[in-house]
């Protein structure tokens, strides 16, 4: 029973981790909570759904196309709602981000309506029985995809030139730009990658729970952020760890405490972490320059 919950938590957590990466990458670079990230996740799910059901695109392809489309959307949001405010107060940027989130969510409501859509399953429902837990084929696929994406991201950040530039910009924007790095370009790339990962999560969750709705981004979006804070915002391995930790805590909390308070668990965890270790589990304390 407990191990089963752990496995369920791991699956849920890996989808949170993918969302958390988008928050953490963006925050690391422009110190802004991208409130619209949950809506990008929702958009990814819709894009995947429509590609599969309306345009009859094969699943595998639809998955990556949805990621690409979400990347485009993420870059557009950055360009329209955040970039013009780069030199105004943080409060202004944050309010604009909230605006973008509300706008996208209600745009989806307007276009797609309030009813939930069913995502057809890409694989036959087959369940594997092990001595300690059961796991479905779909769940295995979700786990593998999530971890492959996380490994790909890690390699990208560590090995490629753009990845290194991203780290440089996150460290010190001024120095990075003196060294000839195009800051705007790096910010755009960051939004693109973060959004693509969010969309990947959206598609997988859509398939997993078999429903896609206009408001599906709100809770996972918030939880992805909680996961990012948990791991130490701005910290990429931290986001992965935070996501998985949150998934497991939530599943176990729902199983052993109360399933009605499932969503409250995440926020209680958030407030606790903020109090005990505001820099998150892997974040390093920084002393504000005076």
């Amino acid at each position, binding site marked *: 029973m407990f191990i089963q919950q752990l496995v369920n938590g791991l699956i849920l957590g890996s989808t949170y981790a993918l969302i958390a990466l988008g928050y953490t990458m963006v925050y690391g670079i422009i110190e802004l909570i991208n409130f619209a990230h949950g809506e990008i996740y929702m958009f990814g799910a819709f894009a995947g759904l429509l590609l599969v059901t309306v345009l009859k695109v094969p699943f595998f392809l639809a998955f990556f196309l949805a990621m690409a489309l979400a990347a485009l959307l993420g870059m557009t949001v950055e360009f329209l709602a955040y970039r013009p405010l780069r030199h105004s107060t943080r409060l202004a940027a944050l309010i604009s981000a909230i605006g973008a989130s509300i706008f996208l969510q209600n745009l989806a409501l307007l276009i797609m309506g309030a009813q939930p859509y069913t995502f057809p399953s890409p694989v036959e429902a087959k369940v594997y029985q092990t001595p300690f837990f059961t796991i479905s084929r779909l769940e295995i696929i979700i786990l593998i995809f999530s971890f492959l994406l996380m490994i790909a991201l890690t390699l990208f950040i560590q090995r490629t030139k753009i990845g290194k530039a991203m780290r440089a910009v996150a460290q010190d924007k001024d120095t990075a730009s003196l060294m000839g790095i195009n800051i705007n370009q790096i910010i755009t790339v960051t939004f693109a990658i973060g959004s693509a990962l969010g969309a990947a999560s959206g598609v997988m969750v859509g398939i997993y729970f078999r429903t896609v709705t206009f408001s599906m981004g709100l809770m996972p979006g918030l939880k992805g952020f909680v996961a990012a804070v948990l791991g130490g915002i701005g910290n990429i391995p931290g986001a992965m760890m935070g996501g998985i930790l949150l998934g497991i805590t939530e599943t176990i909390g729902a199983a052993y405490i109360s399933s009605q308070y499932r969503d409250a668990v995440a926020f209680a965890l958030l407030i606790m972490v903020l109090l005990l270790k505001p820099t998150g589990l892997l974040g*390093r*304390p920084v*002393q504000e320059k*005076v």
Partner: protein
Amino acid sequence: MPPETILTATGICHSFGGLMALEDVDFQIKRKEIVSLIGPNGAGKTTLFNLFTGHYNPTRGEIYFNNRKINGLKPYQVTPIGIARTFQNIRLFGQMSVLENVLVGQHCRTRSGLFDAILRTRGFRQEEARARKVALEMLAFVRLEEKKDEKACNLSYGEQRRLEMARALATNPSLLLLDEPAAGMNPQETTSLMELVRQIRDQMGITILLIEHDMKVVMGISERVAVLNYGRKIAEGTPREVQNNEEVIRAYLGESA
């Protein structure tokens, strides 16, 4: 009888996650002195200020102000006991008026709370009137009284520096720390700034420690100069002594080379 030395710092070390910004610095300021702190960029001067005002807590070492240990105190606790400062990168309350900036400076010298404010008690009104009067005096002192209703962010650079000084003075300090007060000023403004600093000491009896790069200012007003380089104090003495100190010359030449 207050002690002869107003501030004593011993064995100060401060590191930012591995980077040693200050190493084993001893420092003293005598009452009613004008002391300059100089040194190349990144030497740790501003960090020392931040330690004195409680913005950072020293990694090691002790700081005494009027014989009272102050490290570990928060900035809002340090100000009421008599240390005021200005910032290297001016930090005014930009959207507030010039007068309001100086009124905020008197925060720790006023007492009225929530209920006084709501009920507009007599004590509240008297305190407000007094605060206003003091604020206007401070503004007159730095020659900004005509700009009292302008927004702070609309002042010129030199005016902003003077306003920051007036705001610091409004906290009624006995020690005033000025972080590069002449930076960005033209020669005329610099001259009147030097005059102003001297007046603050002579008329108000306030001890002054300033960080400055302009050697004309340093040589012109300070009675004593301390030199930091790479987080260490490498020299201290009268302006003349420091000027001819070989290590100091090397530190500065090393920087420009």
